[in-house]
Each structure stands twice: as structure tokens, then as C-alpha cells.
């Protein structure tokens, strides 16, 4: 029963989504939206699991004064400061809730968002170091990659485009047609078709209960 019930639920849920794809929404209503709402509601309940996990993992180092315990303490404090006022009713104070002017909103705009933007901005440096390793001309294929990347990167900036136009007016269009729209798109489509088939086969294996590892069954 412990195995059969989840498999039956997975099969029926999968079948429901297939039915939603085929059935006319005019006749059966917004079944798809309804099913997705169920997922959101279940997800909401599991939020507590996340909070419990984060507190469990970070509380122990603080209590035992392990190396770097103050970082764990800062994290716990941040969780409390962001979470507690956001779930309190706005009628108690305009600082509560998640609306504009609330504590949550202030912390999000002034701390969380800039920190996330900083992480994202760091990507530029990571791209540079990865490109330095990837674009080394160690073999014929790597040299071809290096040359293609140089041409594409130049074409993407106004100076490079101007340079290509100076050589031949149709050169930027040729790069667009043959490199980006030709070779690049062909390879990407090959990967996408393969991945889509893989995803469909995995879905089928899950629906039929052949693939059960995601439920902890090996």
C-alpha cells in the first residue's frame, strides 16, 4: 500500500494533465489552473519544513559555539526579522505584512535585492575566467571554437559590427544567418529534441511506476 498508493496518485495526476491537454476548457472549465493551484497549496504547507530545516541546521553551531557560529546566528536572526513581521496582521501595525512600507518590504528592497544583484553581477567575472579556460586553442576543434566565439562576440558589439560592415556590408547578416541561425540553432534544437524525448520517457516511467527512485524506492 505504501508503494502502490503514491504510484496510483502519480499515474492519475499524470493522466489528468494529459486529459487537460486534450479536453476542451469550454466544457470542463479551467482544470489546468485548478490542478496547478493544488500544487501551490501543497507547496505552502511544506514551507514550514524549510523553516524547521534551516533552524535545525543553524541552531546547533550557535549553541555549541562552533567555528563561524556568528554567521549561523546572523542567518537565524535574518530569518526571524524577515519572516515574523511579514506574517503578523497589518491591522496591528503598518510595519507588519508584506505591503509597501512594511519591514519586510524595506529589508527586501534595501538588503536582499542589492545582495542578489551583486551575486548576479559577479557572473561577468566568472564568465571571463571560464572563457579564458574554454577558449584555449589546444586542438583543431578548440581553435575553431575560439575563432567562432571571437567573431560572434565582435559581431555583438557596435564596434565589431562596424568593423565587419567596413569589410563587407553583408558580413554581419552572414554571421547571423549561418553561425547563429544555422549551426547554433541546429545544435540547440538537437539538444532540445533529445531532452524533450527524455523528459517524456521519464514522465511515462514515473506514471507507470517503473521509475520510483524519486520516492525513495531503489
Amino acid at each position, binding site marked *: 500500500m505504501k508503494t502502490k498508493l503514491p504510484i496510483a496518485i502519480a499515474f492519475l495526476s499524470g493522466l489528468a494533465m494529459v486529459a487537460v*491537454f486534450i479536453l476542451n476548457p469550454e466544457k470542463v472549465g479551467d482544470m489546468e489552473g485548478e490542478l496547478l493551484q493544488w500544487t501551490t497549496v501543497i507547496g505552502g504547507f*511544506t514551507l514550514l519544513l524549510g523553516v524547521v*530545516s534551516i533552524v535545525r541546521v543553524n541552531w546547533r553551531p550557535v549553541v555549541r559555539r562552533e567555528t563561524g557560529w556568528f554567521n549561523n546566528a546572523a542567518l537565524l536572526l535574518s530569518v526571524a526579522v524577515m519572516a515574523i513581521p511579514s506574517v503578523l496582521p497589518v491591522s496591528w501595525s503598518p510595519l507588519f505584512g508584506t505591503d509597501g512600507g512594511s519591514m519586510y518590504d524595506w529589508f527586501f528592497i534595501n538588503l536582499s535585492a542589492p545582495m542578489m544583484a551583486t551575486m548576479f553581477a559577479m557572473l561577468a567575472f566568472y564568465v571571463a575566467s571560464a572563457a579564458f579556460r574554454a577558449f584555449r586553442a589546444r586542438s583543431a576543434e578548440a581553435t575553431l571554437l575560439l575563432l567562432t566565439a571571437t567573431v560572434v562576440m565582435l559581431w555583438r558589439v557596435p564596434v565589431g559590427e562596424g568593423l565587419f560592415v567596413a569589410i563587407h556590408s553583408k558580413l554581419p547578416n552572414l554571421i547571423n544567418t549561418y553561425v547563429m541561425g544555422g549551426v547554433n540553432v541546429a545544435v540547440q534544437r538537437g539538444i532540445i529534441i533529445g531532452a524533450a524525448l527524455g523528459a517524456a520517457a521519464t514522465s511515462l516511467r514515473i506514471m507507470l511506476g517503473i521509475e520510483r527512485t524519486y520516492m525513495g524506492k531503489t
Partner: protein
Amino acid sequence: MRLARPVGLLLLLVLLLIPELLAANGASSVETGWFRTYRINAIIVAAVFSAAVLYYTQRARRGDKLFVRKIAGLDEVEDAVGRATEMGKPVLFIAGIDEIDKIDTLAGLSILGRVALITARYETPLYVPVRYPMVLAAAQEVVQQSYLTEGRADSYNQDMVCYVAGEQFAFTATVNGYMMRERPAANIMMGAFYAESLLLAETGNAAGSIQIAGTAQPEQLPFFIAACDYTLMGEELFAASAYLSHEPLMLGGLKGQDFMKVLIIAAILVGTFMVTTHLGGDWMRSLFEVR
């Protein structure tokens, strides 16, 4: 015969649809009946694909030998865990950063189950940070079952799998910090990754970890290829669980995929010929249009 009932249900659904679908006139996208008949092409393709997967699965069940090509990245998983064991360092596993309803995440969790079997066998520390509470619950169950299967229930610790942050870059910062502090011997990243793929992979590279990554997101593949030792591309991610399990029944599904790929290649060749020669190119295109 365990598959007989679900297969029967699927076939029944298709049979129920056939009269309605055959009655479709003009394939208009405005429907008044119970079924969206303009989606008949997608239904037929899905039915053929399902039949192919089920046929090869049944063949595998009967004991037919199925050849599956070598996937270097997956062969390396056990060696990577072995390396971690020798170095006395942990294995870091990330099942992507998407929700559990994403099929890439489920594929990642399936691979996690196989990896956890190996870490349990060698008693290697395993760390699995997750971004969503639902993934947390599933991943904890997967890892716990793997440890139980290997008879190492005492080595299992619930905090091996932990929720770290719901925001994409907060999650990335936490995992990057872990990589630089603990310097795991192996980083295995399997699932859906987005802008953080290179941040994670480059940090792991800087930490000196052996890295095996897999994703079905084509935009992130170049980053993983540049920064990781082994990369599973697209379909290889979905094949990984079957490949690592060595179970003929699971491998049968891979054969079904290959059969479908042959059909798609044939359709591309015929379509290219028809469009190039103006011999019914529009008709061919309309055959594959999904609304």
C-alpha cells in the same frame, strides 16, 4: 504483466478519443465538442511514443539484451565518490534549483538516490542543499531510503539534506560558501539550472573539486562544459537514473526514445526535401503544428 492495467487505461483513452478525433473537420482552433481535435497530431505522436517505450520495456522484461552506449560522466560518478572517500571529504549534490513539479528536478532526485547508495556504501559524507521545501521532503526520503537499502541507517543524518534559501542567488551564495569552506572532493549537479550554473561550477572548479554536471537547459550547457570535468547534455540527464540502475526494465525506456528519434530524423529529412522542392511543404509543416 504489471504494466497491463495502466497501458490498458492509456489505450482506452486513445480509443475513446478516436471517433471524436476522426470527426474533426477543418481542424479549427475554436472547438465546441469535448475534445480539442486540433491537437490530434500531438496525441498521435504521444501514443506512438508511449507504445514504443512500453514495447521496449516489455522486451526488456522478457530478458532481451539492450545495448546502451557508454556515458562517461555517469561512469565517473562512482570514481568521484571513491575519490571523496580517499580524501575524507564530502560529496556535494545539487538537484537543480527548480520546484519538484519540474521533470529535471525529478530526474536529479532519481540520480541522488543512486549517488546516496554509493556514499552510504563507502560511508562518505554527503551534503544536499535544496531551494524548495517540497524538494527537501522528497530528497530527505530518497537519501534515507538509499542508506536503509545499503544497511547504513545509522550513518544517515537528516541534516545531510537541508533547505538553505528560497532565493536563487541567496541559494547560490550559500552553496558557493560551502564549496570554499569545506572544499568537497566531488560536486554533482543534476537538474534544472539557470543563471547560477556558472557561479556554482566556477566556484567548484576553484575549490579543486571533481565536477559532474547535467542539465536539459541548452543555455546553461556551455557554462557547465567550460567549468566541469564531465557534463551530461539534455537527454543524458533523463537517462542517468536508468543507466546507473543497470535495470533492464528502466533501460527499455531509453530504447523507446531512440526509436522516436529515428522517426523524428526521418520526418526532418522528408520535411526538408518537401519544403525545398515545394512538394507539399506547407502540408508537412501543418502536420507538426501544435496549437
